[in-house]
């Protein structure tokens, strides 16, 4: 993620919505993985640590993929 962010930063005009969507996908996969292996729902903190993200990023990402605009993007990308 750090790498991606650095790349995106260089570009300068990359939209946040895009980065957040990528984070949301990672979070979703990790959550499924944890639930399969432990049978428990992970906490946001656990996911943040495992994915080297901040809890803030997870909250933002989860919300961003709810937006109609993001749905539009994921359909047409």
């Amino acid at each position, binding site marked *: 993620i750090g790498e991606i962010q650095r790349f995106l930063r260089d570009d300068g005009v990359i939209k946040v919505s895009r980065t957040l969507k990528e984070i949301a996908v990672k979070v979703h996969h990790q959550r499924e993985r944890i639930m399969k292996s432990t049978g428990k*729902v992970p*906490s946001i903190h656990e996911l943040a640590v495992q994915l080297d993200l901040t809890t803030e990023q997870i909250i933002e990402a989860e919300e961003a993929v709810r937006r109609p605009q993001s749905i539009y993007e994921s359909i047409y990308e």
Partner: protein
Amino acid sequence: MKNEVVVQFPSLSEYESLARVIVSSFMLPYDPTFDELSDVKTVVSEAVTNAIIHGYEYQPGIVELRLAIVAGILTIVIKDNGQGIDNIEQVKEPLFTTKPECERSGMGFTIMEQFMDRCHIESTPGKGTVVTLEKMLVSVAMGV
């Protein structure tokens, strides 16, 4: 209330998202699970949407959101100064809605009662509505 967060925002549906991230961030220090968080976000969405579409009927107004956690109990208060509710028992009934034309499900209050440990409605017709929601946080309850 101790350590309370108070938010006022315009009665526009674009702020539903704001209310959801605020409650998420507020709960974070209590290490919520994904599911806990998603339940709470859902009820906040329901209550905020109600304030916007029923309370203010899409007219400009201010929605107030208050959050506090005391002794492991999360309290969420959602307040509007809109048209209020005549019959509180009736609106709590599953599938009851006064806006069937809006494709509303009439399940908002049912969801709030289901997902939270307490759902209390106070309302004065012509003055507005205050919905108070409470939930015992599992992680805190378990002493995690």
